[in-house]
């Protein structure tokens, strides 16, 4: 009993829990930066570590040491809470996603709903944090984040719950296990859903063409313009974890998640799938100009929501 509890704590803290995820987050940021740089004919980080692999970590450490300023007009509670939640919410979400084997660290029937809940909370946190930091730019950024949520939330949820139908379960672990066992990856059985989910994840992660809430050239850094020092470090780490989260969701819900192939352990397979999704996100991010907020809303309602609905109807007809 004691040893079981101990092993659970170890799992939670080290592998595949906290430490592993944080390392993975830093590594993903590096991969993404290098990849985008290559597409753009640049070098990307080169200085820290071999090939600049430690650069995200170095950035984090540097930010920790910087001065921490709370603007006089900011609402202190939310200003402190937002960066913390920015990191902890996606981290929690990763605990319920299977990475090493068929079962996630914490898994229960209905954890898919919990995942959806976390995503919405995250955006609302962003909105509150931006709105209450007391700067015009962050206010506009916060409002934009909330407005954007109106556009992508419905297709996002539809695409998120799509894979649950064939597997007839609301547990992420069961869905990915079902897909792996039946060799019916979501990508093949419901390709439109996959596309919708990728688009919505780009919007959720505030990546191009949906980086409207933090559009650098328009509103400086949007909702996170007032965060400095430790808070900014947490926000940025939170971003990286979110990146891992997004690729993991794609890998688990649409690519069958961790599965044993021949003698290759599931974790390797999982990482391969996850990084494939990460590169896909990175590739898409470089191809577009930024939309305007009204264009996102109308585009989402005109094209993406109908697409998600059609996918849902097709699924219902087949299963």
């Amino acid at each position: 009993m004691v040893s079981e509890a101990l092993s659970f704590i170890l799992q939670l803290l080290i592998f595949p829990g906290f430490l592993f995820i944080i390392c993975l987050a830093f590594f993903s940021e590096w991969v993404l930066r290098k990849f985008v740089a290559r597409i753009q004919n640049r070098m990307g980080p080169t200085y820290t570590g071999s090939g600049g692999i430690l650069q995200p970590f170095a950035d984090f450490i540097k930010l920790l040491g910087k001065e921490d300023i709370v603007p006089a007009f900011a609402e202190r509670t939310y200003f402190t809470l937002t960066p913390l939640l920015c990191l902890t919410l996606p981290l929690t979400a990763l605990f319920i996603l299977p990475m090493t084997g068929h079962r996630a660290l914490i898994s229960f029937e209905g954890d898919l709903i919990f995942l959806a809940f976390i995503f919405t909370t995250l955006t609302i946190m962003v909105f509150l944090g931006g709105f209450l930091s007391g700067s015009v730019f962050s206010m506009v950024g916060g409002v934009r984040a909330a407005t954007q949520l109106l556009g992508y939330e419905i297709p996002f949820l539809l695409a998120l719950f799509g894979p649950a139908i064939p597997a007839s379960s609301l547990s992420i672990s069961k869905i990915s296990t079902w897909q792996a066992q039946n060799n019916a990856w979501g990508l093949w059985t419901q390709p439109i859903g996959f596309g919708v989910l990728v688009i919505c994840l780009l919007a959720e992660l505030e990546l191009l063409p949906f980086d409207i809430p933090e559009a650098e050239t328009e509103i400086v850094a949007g909702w996170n313009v007032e965060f400095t020092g430790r808070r900014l470090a947490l926000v940025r780490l939170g971003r990286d974890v979110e990146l891992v989260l997004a690729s993991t969701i794609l890998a688990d819900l649409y690519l069958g998640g961790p599965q044993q192939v021949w003698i290759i352990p599931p974790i390797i397979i999982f990482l391969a799938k996850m990084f494939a999704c990460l590169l896909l996100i990175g590739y898409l991010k470089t191809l577009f100009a930024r939309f305007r907020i009204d264009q996102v809303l109308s585009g989402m309602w005109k094209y993406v929501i109908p697409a998600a609905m059609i996918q849902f109807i097709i699924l219902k007809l087949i299963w």
Partner: protein
Amino acid sequence: MAFAREALRNIFKKPVTEKYPFERREPAEGFRGRPVWDMKKCIGCGTCVRVCPVKAVEMIGRGREATIKHHLERCIYCGQCAESCPVKAITMTPEYELSDTDKSKMLHVYERK
């Protein structure tokens, strides 16, 4: 998605950025870098002092005895001194890494042997 192909093509190309302090590029022919005075040729006419738009050249004494001081931190590398010198005593060298935190290193004094 018009850039999809171009982007894919570039993933496998070498970056165009140069790793500057480690890889240096040769300046082009006719590059105007640090001007250097050849005091064997100079006749101390003072033309370079007069034409310099930023007063980067200073002359102490006159005629063939004169010493020339060149203030690198003021020089804008226009090359007018080299062009105006009647005996072509000034050449624009291709040296370009000329900044320094020590101001005394920015002063070049040309004395006659």
